[in-house]
């Protein structure tokens, strides 16, 4: 996974609240297209003649400024892939859908939670493409006018993202510990094993 430390660039404003993952990427696009082709279908239901990610200076922008509850709905990780394929590396919003939020971290995308007023202020300043900086080392977003907006982030998630570490690799080192837990659990909860008679054919 690509590490995330600091990025600077245009921040595209898309402040409508409750943009769900169905709107971020339609399900048929995920069944029909390889990942690298998803970018141009990201947010297609919202794309009109003047869609923000299709016009300069925001085409290929690394930062999205979004509304509350961004990424609510379906668990499809393809929503993160589609946004990534447009060039985005970080999304700043007042709140995110829980599953989308977790999916971001598994793909090197940094979701930043800032208060609604801060997102609005960034959007106003960045409206013509003035650069915004997202700094994961210092845990702050720097507005075009130099104002710093500190953000809170879970320390474990931050470490993994800074190093680009894949969680699965870490857990695979614990397989013996997991096997021991499973063995003890089989004694503790004998009822938990699926009934072997149950398999219907």
């Amino acid at each position, binding site marked *: 996974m690509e590490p995330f430390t600091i990025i600077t660039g245009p921040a595209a404003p898309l*402040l*409508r*609240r*409750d943009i*769900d993952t*169905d*709107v971020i990427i*339609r*399900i*048929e696009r*995920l*069944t*029909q297209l390889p990942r690298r082709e998803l970018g141009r279908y990201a947010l297609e*239901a919202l794309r009109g003649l003047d869609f923000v990610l299709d016009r300069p200076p925001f085409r290929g922008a690394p930062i999205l400024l979004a*509304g*509350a*509850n961004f990424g*609510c*709905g*379906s*668990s*499809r*990780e*393809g929503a*993160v892939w589609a946004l990534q394929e447009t060039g985005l590396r970080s999304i700043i919003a007042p*709140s*995110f*859908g*829980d*599953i989308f939020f*977790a*999916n971001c971290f*598994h*793909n090197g995308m940094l979701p930043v939670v800032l208060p*609604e007023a801060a997102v609005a202020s960034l959007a106003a300043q960045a409206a013509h493409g003035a650069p915004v900086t997202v700094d994961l080392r210092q845990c702050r977003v720097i507005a075009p006018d130099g104002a710093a907006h500190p953000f809170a982030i*879970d*320390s*474990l998630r931050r470490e993994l993202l800074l190093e680009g570490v894949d*969680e*699965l690799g870490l*857990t*695979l080192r*614990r*397989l013996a*510990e*997991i096997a021991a837990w*499973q063995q003890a*659990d089989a004694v503790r*909860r*004998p*009822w*938990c*094993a*699926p*009934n072997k*008679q*149950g*398999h*219907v*054919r």
Partner: protein
Amino acid sequence: MPSTLFDRLWEAHVVAELGGGWALLHIDRHLLHDLSGSGGLATLAERGLPLNRPDLTFATADHAVSSAPGRTGETYDQGAPLYRVLREQSQKVGIPFFDIGQRGQGIVHVMAPELGITLPGTTLVCGDSHTCTHGGLGALAFGIGSSELVHVLATQTLRQKKPRQMRIVYEGALKPGVTAKDLALHVIGTLGAAAGTGHAIEHAGPGIAALPIEARLTLCNMSVELGSKIALCAPDQATVDYLRGKPFAPAGADFDAAIADWSELRTDDGARFDREALFNLGCVPPTITWGTSPEHAIAIDGTAPDPCAAPDAARREAWQAALDYMGLTPGQKLCGTPVDWVFIGSCANARLTDLRDAARVVRGRRVAAAVKAWVVPGSVEVKDAAEAEGLDEIFRAAGFEWREPGCSMCVAANGEVVPPGRRAVSTSNRNFVGRQGPGARTHLASPASAAAAAIAGAIADIREI
């Protein structure tokens, strides 16, 4: 210190504490479906990793298969490769695959509870956000993305941070004609689509204890539309009665041991929640959505709102966009608005009691000439049971299509879509822009309200039928 139901479920599955509120959690059940499971199994094979516990993993095809009568797994050609990968990889790694036409096939969140794969006190995950459904039986269940899915396949665990906790207490009883679906929409409409974000929700109180299991499954199903990926109801005697004798549920002494363990699964008096809410079930009206978020829910005899009255600028914009998309004007009454499609199905409302609710309205009546109406049972079990009761005959005689189990028009990943600009009353769980097909206009409602709309040819108040 008093514990919550959620605390107990969480603590019983901690393989290792990882610090900072994180834990490596054991996953007792993993459900795979064609849309996300196929890719997960393929990734596992590519990476050369073995499946940790085939015996805890179950697969079926639901999302991208056709629901047409006489269908095979490959009738919908764009879903056929996903179906084939799921079937072949499942056989290769030795996990049960509930194939098209076999007992057990159906929507993952319908088939797993009714087969007893879902049990109280277990952890259950699936690459699908509506996995919270299984919390209706007292399982700690949540939806995951593709990366987490592969993590579970390879390790039978997940790294999770303990969420905040919310309790919604229900008092009183639902009025006749009002269902768990109306309740869920009413709660989401009242609290908002992000009210549960970052929280595990326990649905509690005397109102829940009085709800049948299938109604609890519906309420928990809709909880992700409240923002929470986890929802729970404490198991009770109704849960035990529901599970007794299910094919995959424990039997004999194991079932007795399970009942003893399950009786501990409750929230202590005095346990603290980060957020609480209270609802009186007697005040819940038949409820329907007017817009493009599940929080756009109103009483069925209500009117579409005026964006000028929105509580904030962001909602004003969202309401206006939703009205435009839905082809409604501020103040327009929903009742009497003509509909083109009615869909009765989905993991929210395709269980036997849902079909009975709809059939009661439909019996002896005819679907309006301009309406296309489908019933898609949630599973082979539901379909067989409904046919044994003659429900299929009631629907067919009225002019409904009686179809094969799957997600169908709820997810529209299977070629089954509401055409652009057409208005549908749907028993599914999402009214998002384009969810049921590009340009489709979806009103979420209960099975009885959907049936009433099919008969009337327009949105209709079930209390007046």
